């Protein structure tokens, strides 16, 4: 079983984001970088499938700057077999079409049975790349999966529909699946995994970049949150709290 996992280098989720001087990008000076957390679910799923099958190969693919080798190395330490870096210093500025196009071009030649992505990257929160990638590859796609089993060239997947419905699908492979929290518990890299990772290959490839269809015009931080307010103390305050939540905050 050959599996490709798309991973992105993103700012750590507790980063205090600053907008750059151009007003259109993020100031990356003080940023700590991590593997996009949803991509970790995808990687874990891929490793579990390979382990269950007792054979196969997991390739992580990343469109990113040269520095993204450290995130790829981490994926190799966790258990991926090899990595492809579509090296592009401008990777962060592309729209989802360009990103999906570059990933599709790289994955097409790999002959994989399955492509796994995170349901979204936590930097932009758009969730488009997986779906666009499936379209580019002409493959079926199920998004935001929370369960996955593979047998006889078919994947059985579950996702949460509206209102908490559990939806179950069967999909023929190859397919593109985007992974959600709850699918699995990503493992830590082990010390041995870290030692082995340095012997595994990271292929650096020139990405095939189409032209973008979207331009970022401006980025703004959300307004400062207003200070909290203490309505009163103990049971006596409940009525007033409910009234204010209802009439002023309008959340009840």
């Amino acid at each position: 079983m050959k599996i490709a996992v798309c991973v992105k280098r993103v700012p750590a989720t507790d980063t205090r984001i600053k907008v750059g001087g151009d007003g259109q990008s993020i100031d990356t000076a003080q940023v700590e970088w991590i593997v996009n957390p949803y991509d970790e679910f995808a990687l874990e799923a891929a490793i579990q499938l390979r382990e269950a099958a007792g054979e196969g190969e997991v390739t992580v693919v990343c469109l990113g700057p040269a520095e993204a080798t450290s995130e790829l190395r981490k994926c190799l330490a966790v258990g991926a077999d090899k990595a492809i870096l579509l090296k592009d210093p401008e990777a962060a500025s592309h729209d989802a079409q360009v990103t999906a196009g570059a990933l599709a071009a790289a994955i097409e030649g790999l002959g994989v049975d399955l492509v796994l992505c995170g349901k979204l990257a936590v930097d932009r929160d758009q969730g488009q790349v997986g779906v666009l990638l499936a379209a580019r590859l002409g493959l079926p796609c199920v998004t935001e999966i929370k369960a996955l089993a593979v047998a006889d060239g078919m994947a059985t997947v579950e996702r949460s529909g509206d209102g908490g419905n559990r939806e179950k699908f069967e999909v023929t492979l190859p397919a593109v699946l985007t992974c959600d929290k709850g699918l699995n518990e990503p493992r830590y890299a082990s010390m041995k995994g870290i030692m082995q990772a340095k012997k595994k290959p990271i292929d650096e490839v020139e990405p095939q970049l189409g032209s973008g269809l979207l331009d970022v015009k401006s980025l703004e931080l959300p307004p400062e949150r207003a200070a909290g307010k203490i309505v009163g103390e103990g049971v006596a305050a409940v009525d007033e709290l409910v009234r204010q939540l209802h009439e002023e905050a309008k959340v009840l």
Partner: protein
Amino acid sequence: MSEYRGVDYYLLDDLLTEEERMVRDMTRDFVSEAVMPIIGEAYENAEFPLHLVPKIGELGMMGANLPEEYGCAGLGPVAYGLINQELERGDSGLRSFVSVQGSLVMWPIFAYGTEEQKQRWLPAMAKGEKIGCFGLTEPDHGSNPAGMVTNARKDGDEWVINGAKMWITNGTIADVAVVWAQTDEGIQGFLVEKGTPGFSAPEQKRKFSLRASVTSELVFDDVRVPESNRFPDIKGLKGPLGCLTQARYGIAWGGMGAAMACYDEALDYTLNREQFGKPLAGFQLVQQKLANMVTEITKGQLLAWRLGKLKEAGKARPQHVSMAKRNNVGRALDIARVARDMLGANGITAEYQCMRHMCNLESVNTYEGTYDIHTLILGQDVTGIPAFE
């Protein structure tokens, strides 16, 4: 609160390899996710978090510097040190467990043991399936282990051990004890297995320090072990001292881990707590404390890193290790005490870490050579005059 990211005032991360950073980050994540949520309560209840051991084994943290052929990861000294640093950021008790298992039990089996002993114990101990302890200290012989009275007498193909050890980390939960005893040919090391008739390991209770760690007595009453359980080629005090040099190396890094946790907590707390109309961190007295802390941490980190590099190059002497153990644990203890003070009343609770670290570091300052014993080791090294007796 944001995620713990360590303290790196002097950009010392630049001195680390990618692999070393990965080891550090992985251990840090593990501690943040698996240790921090449970350690305060474990400490209060005086319970060692035994449930973490299989996970620590799976991740390869025990004996991580020993070679792959024995199921270990074969890490270099700096990566190994960083594991200790991050574990002790969680709790000195957890780091003690890993130090004893890796440096005081697996290491001597690796360095002094027979091939059979290595095959039998090392892979299982790396996985955490078997636990070890190290018995050197006795009720009446602490800083001066050469005076030990526990003894082993040869009887045919067996050795008969009599005596008692005290303050032995992991004792009660250990499957095997490395025991140092007087023989006709000087001090020798033996592997004594749990359940051997005449051997018992009652736990020592009522500790105010290292509460999330098991400390025990080892009692030997005509305990018979086969000749195959003896370390064949090491005699004299250099046997146990060789182990201590390994463990002290890890402790030098560990001390800084605890110090970093305390500084991080004190900084965060004083930035957010207001008195007299502004954050505590805005007062000069508080800033002086923070400036001292971050300076001592930076010095300690450099000492540990340089020691790692010396070890890598085969140039580290035991006295170099003494300097780092003495300084880094001593300064960590100072930092923990000051942090405790800076948190005011909150600083005495289990909601915060600093008092737990402070109490733990009292043990760490005492074990593996007390602060003053390392002073004497350094004193002898620079003057050539021993002042122990």
